[in-house]
């Protein structure tokens, strides 16, 4: 089960409000390489992972990704909080406002709703961990695009933290993959 801590994993501030940027950074809330996809991918895969290191890694990284989902949600919320409709209507955020008001909704930067088709979960552990390694790289690249398009030092600070986490997760999944190969060498049926 999960228990909420009434803290963020890392501070999420915005220096100034920016509805246009909200409609871009939202892709890490509900886009193909976003934090919701990351979390649900890992906590779906953990059940059939054959080695203890792999189960724990998927559980804890899946948990951390949900905390990142909250950090991105905080940025989107702060970027548009209290901005009147007649201002929002002239921004990229207008379609979001038409469908959701200022509430957060897991969608990508084009407005496409989150879908489980973004993720895969295989009983074959190598197939799953390879998917996870790719997912971490895609998330890292997305953070770099988003950082390149911001000039708000507070947002850049938070996105840089999240980018760095993807690098660490990639490292940990790489170690799980090595452990999986050792495990498979020990069991001929896998070889």
């Amino acid at each position, binding site marked *: 089960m999960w228990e909420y801590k*009434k*803290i*963020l*994993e890392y*501070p*999420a501030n915005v220096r100034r409000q920016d509805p246009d940027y909200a409609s871009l950074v939202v892709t890490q809330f509900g886009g193909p390489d976003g934090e919701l996809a990351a979390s649900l991918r890992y906590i779906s895969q953990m059940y059939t992972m054959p080695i203890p290191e792999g189960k724990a*890694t998927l559980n*804890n990284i899946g948990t951390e990704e949900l905390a990142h989902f*909250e950090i991105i949600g905080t940025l989107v919320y702060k970027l548009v909080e209290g901005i009147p409709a007649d201002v929002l209507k002239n921004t990229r955020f207008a379609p979001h406002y038409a469908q959701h008001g200022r509430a957060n909704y897991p969608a990508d930067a084009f407005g496409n709703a989150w879908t489980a088709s973004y993720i895969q979960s295989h009983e074959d552990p190598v197939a799953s961990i390879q998917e996870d390694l790719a997912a971490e790289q895609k998330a890292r690249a997305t953070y770099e695009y988003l950082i390149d398009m911001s000039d708000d030092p507070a947002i850049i600070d938070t996105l840089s933290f999240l980018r760095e986490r993807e690098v660490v997760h990639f490292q*940990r999944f790489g170690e799980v993959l090595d452990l999986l190969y050792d495990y498979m060498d020990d069991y001929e049926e896998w070889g």
Partner: protein
Amino acid sequence: MDRNRRPGSPVNVEMLREIMQLNFAMIETVLFLNTHPTCRPVLDLHNEFASRFNKLVERYQERYGPIYASYENAEYPWMWIEEPWPWEIKY
């Protein structure tokens, strides 16, 4: 953005940030230990971070209200619902 706190719902951002730092340090030791379960130095580091985190959270909860809904010395009235929530704080 009005970040003024209602009376009776204090928040100590400096102390919260310290809690967040220790929480993050633990996230790192946990992930590392998951793939290096026999690494004694990081295990010791983990225990030290966990101990400091738990002590600081306990002090925070006594003074400013619960970090966990399961806080055992909850005061009347129920403080868990007090704002600000983590997304409402200027850090």
